[in-house]
């Protein structure tokens, strides 16, 4: 067991965790933040994407102890209260989601892009989002949603 302190969705928290605890388990099971989804478990699908100091990572490949001293953003921290983030609004308006299981990861990956590059080209969006699999949408509307959120085109 190890004590870790992190900034989670803007608030500082301290918890005891086992060395072997994965970040995805820590979030979902210890903190009951189930918006972060786990699918492939091997860092390929992107469903468990969270932001670590603003950068997208796979929570299924990251040990909870590794986020000590870092800022972690999960999907629960993207909206401000009831006010949705422009990416969330855009995903709703442009059909960027269907079953929704990959959506938290998609939105966090897109947020990292827009935070670093507020006006990406469509090709940049397409390339950046390659690590987040979606089986429902065929990606077109995810790309459209992100482009709309940053006023691309």
């Amino acid at each position, binding site marked *: 067991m190890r004590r870790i302190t992190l900034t989670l969705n803007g608030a500082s928290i301290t918890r005891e965790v086992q060395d*072997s605890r994965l970040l995805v388990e820590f979030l*979902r099971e210890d903190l*009951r*933040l*189930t*918006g*972060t*989804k*786990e*699918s*492939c*478990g*091997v860092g*390929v*699908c992107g*469903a468990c994407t969270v932001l670590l100091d603003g950068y997208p990572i796979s929570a299924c490949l990251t040990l909870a102890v590794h986020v000590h001293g870092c800022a972690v953003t*999960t*999907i*629960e921290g*993207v*909206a401000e209260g009831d006010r*949705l983030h422009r990416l*969330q609004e855009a*995903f*709703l*308006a*442009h*059909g960027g*989601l*269907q*079953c*929704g*299981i*990959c*959506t*938290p990861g998609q*939105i966090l990956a897109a947020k990292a892009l827009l935070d670093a590059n507020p006006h990406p080209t469509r090709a940049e*969006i*397409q*390339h950046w*989002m*390659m*690590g*987040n*699999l*979606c*089986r*429902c*949408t*065929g*990606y*077109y*509307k*995810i*790309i459209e949603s992100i482009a709309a959120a940053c006023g691309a085109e």
Partner: protein
Amino acid sequence: MAATELSGKAVGLSVQRADGIAKVTGRARYAGDIELPGTLFGRCLRSPHASARIVSIDARRARALPGVHAVLTGADVPDTRYGRLCKDIPLLAKGVARFVGEKVAAVAADSVEIAEAALELIDVAYAELPAVFVPEDAMRPKAPVIHPEAVEIAAGAATRSHGELRMYPPIPNVISRFTMRHGDVAAALARAHRIFEHQFAVPSVHQGYIEPHTCLVSIGVDGLVDVWVANKGPHIARGHMAEAIGVPEDRVRFNPVAIGGDFGGKGSLMDTLLCHCLARATGRPVRFVMNSFEELTAGNPRHSAAITLRTGVDADAKLLAIEARVIFNAGAYAGFIPAPTLHGGYAEFAGAYRVPNCALEVLRVYTNTVPRGHMRAPGAPQVAFAVEIHIDMIAHEMRLDPLEMRQRNAITDGDLTPHGETRRHLRCRETIEAGARAFGWHRPKPPAVGRGIALYEHPSGSFGRSTVTLTLGSNGRFTLMVGSPDTGTGFHTIAAQLVAEHFGVAAAVVDVVQGDTLTSGFEAGSSGQRVTTTVGQAVAAAAERMKQDLTALAAERLNCAPGDVRLGEDGSLAAAGATIGLAPLMSWAAARGKAPLRCQGENDPGRPNDRTSFVAHFAEVAVDTETGQVRLRRVVTAHDVGTIVNPLTHQGQIEGGLMQAVGQALSERIVLQDGAVITAHLGDYKLPTSMDIPELETVLLPGGSGAAPFATTAIGEMSNVALPAAITNAVFDAVGVRLLELPVRAEQVLEGLSDRAGAA
């Protein structure tokens, strides 16, 4: 067909998804998100052998591991066999394991880690038995018989086709043999100008839903079994579970959860019965989540198929007769699908064409491989691939443009389908033409660039019972309760729009809730592109009843006869110069104890549709002649559509289906080695990513002939079926390499190129 008048407030608008906010904020609850106090984690030990006798299992060390609450082997679970039609799946292997990945023992423990550690401590002694991996071997007279005992078949299940079906015929390992004849094939072939015969192979692919199979079972002190499971048809699954565990249906409650993608793969109980055994053994709730390795190696992927087509044409390349033989590899168990054979394996085998004489044989065969299940338009992608390449090959031999070949043979009104059925308002030719125009079929193209076309025909699903409950509250808002989840398609949002349309109100005043299986009426669930049509008709029935109740209420309020009341705009009711809105009327009714109004609507479709839809896909590829790499540059997809309830979700179905087809065409393949799935990782099993999308243009031909009440047509299974053939045909057009199996692989293209170079 009478024009369908719409209010402009509901049907036809891109209404935002009802479940959208929950999903973009992470608040939607899937089966894996449900927390119950004291939940244990279940894991399975799986067979490393494709066919083996289980000599002994020693689980003592596993049982002794701290944190382990139960270890079950085949000896500890009931003899029940589960299946959606063929009841052949044991809860755990009993005495014999039939595929690599079959569940042999199960553990419930305080954590997944402990459960997995316990699996390592279970000693199983196996004696390997002869195995068969492909149907051709499995059907040989001396082949090892995978299920020597008689398999029970669920009562009341029959094919809806007029062909001849034999379950478990006297051919080794054959589950079903379906034959169908129409016309006189022998006579037609005897007078054919030319006869062509080709063989095709389509591998298994995984449905690729991102949410793995997940279930949670909790048994209450009163014996009520509560289930949270990623299943698209909770009422049917509840019935199967109740029967399997021997309790009345009302002692099992399937609770509503969001589903993280289905695509046909989530119709079975998968681990739920085993989960129940562990919950009973431990007295605690138990959760099972398949990991992605298990999903790929031991899920229920699409049937692989070998297809032989033999076709006679006249001198004008008109189809005279087709003989088809389709052999589906079902793997070790038949129970994952609810039908004797794959509907698409016969219904769509030449659906877009006029073929006066047909003979079809479809076999579904056991092998010692991963059990196969349904995937989006079951059977159709396999058969459509074969048919659409075969047609192209005939066109080439007959020196005919592939487009002209299809136009010449396209089915039109008055033609019989290959089944000898009639369908009306057929727009196959118009669909081809509209797509070809948008695509620029005849435009010049650079070298090593090719274009291909493929067609598909499929009616809206008109089967399975639906029951909905419509409530109109004292505030004038509607609530529609349905009994099955929105698997992601937008079904719940569409249901809200349909309710709203009946009353001329905005969809925003309709809430759709999914009831559990105790509170909601029977609903067959999302399958066979049925819900918009079939649930839509149940919604219409409920709305009709509610209009009568509303009219009576308004008549009372407005002091007139019910016959004088008219439903006006925005749901208002008018009679003799007076008008009252829904909300004030219902508020008035509430004060008199007459609210809410509640009506049930049912639909039990008696017969299949006589309407259908067509799609024509056009693909353009560029082939790198040095590496054989194929790049999909552009797709035009042309759809024959009726009224579109929600343009945004409709287009979402088209795009999502297309990219599944792109995966099947260019990268996805479950590879078996000695019966074991070796593409066991999402790194090896390559789903398309955002980098793989082609430039896409969608052409919609509105005015198609749809089903009542609003002339809608289905879209769910239209876009994913035929595109792989269009892509493969485009490769031939680009470089002259004819591929007869999927996926299109660079190695095969390169081999084809060097064969051609050698021959030249």
